[in-house]
């Protein structure tokens, strides 16, 4: 264990020495900067005094008790960052912000475009303050176009990118996604885009402005449907998750839902042994085209076997023959998954208000530059170290800034 720790500290981080000023709130922006801090960047989250990131006031809350340090999504989305408070609506606040940007590499923000410009944060101005900075703006519909000032929530993005139309049942309303998939996709895209700009800056010395549209990131997730339409005119509808290939979906089983995916396709004949029914290996099901045509017969053969077996047994039975079966897992089952436990995916993080808990760890594992699991900051926790330590304000100035409501 000690060796393990030693190794951890000896390793560098991928983004060491990258300084990120983070003006983001809610999901897309904070998820992007969470990735940056996890891979070693110094992320200074700039929050409005008193209430901070709006996500601090959104639930669900730890132990169902409201509080600025208790929002579960906030605690998750802001791991490893520093928090300072700053009122950007005051000219003194803006002047401090300018100093903060001076030696920063990246500025990430996700204000609505209008709000950003009203705050005086046009890229043309930021660029004058720091010509080498990478400024990444994440917004609902991008910085240009007729919808640029449209308001949005997750469900609105999901609807306007063509994703929702295809989710759910043919005879019911389109169904919203549970997780905030469009905003997470935008945060992930912004992460990759910002690193590309940093990579280019190392070669050319030039900063850049990046305009990330949540809607377009969602469209990117649906690129194959769009491509099919552009190439062939196909307009698919909701179909209650009936997959065009067969079998390729979740079916009811003894204790829930099991997923039968007949893939890798070349391994199909092995399914006969898994299900214990030699008919499935018959020539008449040999080709995918045949299986699609005989979908109902295949499902009729699978049904009694599914009814008799438990989800996890079905999952493992498929895997034992190299088939990509699955089961609809509950969150509880994910938390105790032997695979995730063996890989020590969940890591314990201690927070002064909510205590010790297990958090999801690295999205991917660079062998030489591991992910760092640290807690989310309290509101304004790093005010003194950043303002007095990094920026060199005196203790008196610091107190006066707080009294005047600037920080």
């Amino acid at each position, binding site marked *: 264990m000690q060796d393990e720790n030693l190794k951890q500290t000896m390793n560098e981080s991928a983004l060491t020495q990258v300084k990120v000023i983070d003006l983001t709130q809610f999901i897309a922006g904070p998820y992007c900067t969470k990735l940056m801090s996890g891979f070693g960047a110094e992320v200074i989250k700039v929050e409005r005094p008193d209430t901070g990131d709006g996500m601090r006031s959104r639930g669900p809350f730890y132990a169902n008790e409201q509080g600025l340090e208790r929002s579960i999504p906030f605690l998750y989305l802001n791991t490893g960052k520093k928090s300072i408070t700053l009122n950007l609506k005051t000219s003194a606040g803006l002047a401090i912000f300018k100093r903060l940007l001076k030696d920063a590499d990246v500025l990430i923000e996700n204000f609505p475009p209008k709000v950003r410009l009203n705050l005086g944060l046009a890229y043309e101005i930021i660029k004058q303050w720091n010509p080498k900075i990478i400024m990444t703006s994440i917004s609902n519909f991008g910085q240009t176009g007729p919808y640029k000032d449209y308001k949005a929530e997750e*469900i609105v993005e999901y609807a306007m990118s063509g994703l929702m*139309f295809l989710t*759910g049942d043919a005879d019911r309303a389109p169904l919203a996604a549970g997780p905030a998939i469009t905003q997470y996709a935008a945060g992930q895209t912004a992460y990759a885009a910002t690193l590309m700009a940093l990579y280019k800056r190392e070669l050319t010395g030039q900063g850049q402005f990046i305009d990330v549209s949540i809607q*377009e990131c969602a469209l990117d997730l649906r690129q194959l449907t769009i491509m099919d339409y552009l190439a062939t005119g196909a307009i698919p509808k909701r179909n209650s998750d009936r997959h065009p290939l067969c079998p390729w979906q979740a079916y009811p089983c003894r204790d829930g*839902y099991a997923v039968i995916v007949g893939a*890798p396709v070349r391994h199909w004949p092995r399914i006969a042994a898994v299900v214990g029914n030699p008919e499935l290996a018959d020539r008449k099901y040999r080709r995918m085209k045949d299986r699609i045509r005989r979908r109902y017969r295949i499902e009729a053969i699978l049904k009694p076997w599914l009814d008799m077996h438990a989800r996890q047994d079905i999952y493992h039975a498929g895997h034992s023959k190299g088939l990509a079966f699955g089961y609809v897992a509950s969150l509880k089952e994910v938390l105790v998954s032997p*695979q995730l436990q*063996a890989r020590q995916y969940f890591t314990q993080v201690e927070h002064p208000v909510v205590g010790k808990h297990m958090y999801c760890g690295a999205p991917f594992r660079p062998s030489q530059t591991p992910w760092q699991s640290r807690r989310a900051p309290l509101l304004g926790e790093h005010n003194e170290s950043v303002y007095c330590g990094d920026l060199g304000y005196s203790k008196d100035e610091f107190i006066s800034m707080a009294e005047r409501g600037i920080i």
Partner: protein
Amino acid sequence: MIRVVKDKLRLRKRVRRNRPSNGLPLNRVRLLDLTHVWSGPHAARLLADWGAEVIKIEYCQRMDSTRGWLKRFRLYNLTPHHLQLDRNKRSITLDLKESRAKKVFEELIKVSDVVIENFRAGFMASLGLDYNHLKHINPEIILVSMPGFGSTGPEKSCPAYGASLEAVSGLQSLTSYGKGERPRRLKELDMFVGLQGASAVMTALFYRQRTGKGQWVDLSQLESVLTALIGEHLLEYEMNGNQTLPIGNHHPSFAPYGCYRCRGDDKWVVIAVRTDEEWEKFCASVKHPEWKNDERFCNTESRLKSLNQLDILIENWTIKNTHYQAMQCLQEAGIAAGAVLNVKEVCSDPHINQRQFIRTEKEAGKGGLRFPGIPFKVSGENGDVFWRGPCLGDDNEYVLCEILGIPLTELGSFQCGKIGTAYDSEEG
């Protein structure tokens, strides 16, 4: 089932591809793409859009499944999924189990920056091409491995496709019309995993740029999805012992929030009212100012209690409007609302068009195919769709002869024999 493009350009002669202009961020990066199906090819495609020279290596006796199952007239070169996911890449054919082809691959390692693969764990090692071997050939090489469940652990060799991953990750349990109802799929996981793959490459490339050190990245598709999409929900379960989702189209703390039927066949609008102030604006814009004083609806708490009555009244209004009318009317008042667009509407939407999201392949000029574009724009030079997914083996000559210097006369001996699909057999 497998669609192919009806395209007058399809019999075109192979064009000599010049690399896109050198103002793109990744144009000095060469990436060997050993991936197949959706997630890996998407990861490599994202990097190709931004200038990386991506060489897709296919085993021609089992081509990538995105090429479908039709072999006659070389229709496998014309499936939309392949044209999109392999755009801006080059295509070569190599059977890595064969010693001469393996030698070629090792020569390529010497002149490349990144290798990306999504085989099941251990397959690269079985070819004798694990990271330690690659590092021996080129100490600065970056290898990103994307197996379904990661490269270690009891389930490491299990295959995973989007449909199984979405279920096993718990994601599917979070989306349904309500608690106790059948879980529903989002079906976007493969692309999300692709984004993670591109992020992994960029993370390792940036580190190498500063330090000169290559490394191996182990990307478990399962873990990449958990961290991105389910982390907050797993943490809620871990902290509170329960979970808020699924709740269909409603929201735990906002009302009205949902999907409402509009005029026309299968037309819908979504509406999200988050505060009492927005509710007042909403009542004014739908011309029912009396609703805001109705005690069933006067504040969020009462509206959450009277959801059914509220939804009926709202739908009485939306049904009289088209989805675009309802959206525009509410957005003008500053209410978050959106038309539920189908793919045709997406592709003709004025906003999406004004942002020029849909791109025409540059290489083909007039009459070229249209493609979904790039989800972000930069102030410098932008990525684009330079060319469609290449025909199988189109770049054998460029890669083997020009890059590696193998004499043109020997190229024929590398030609692959029988062509086979990832499906069972010729499907006709």
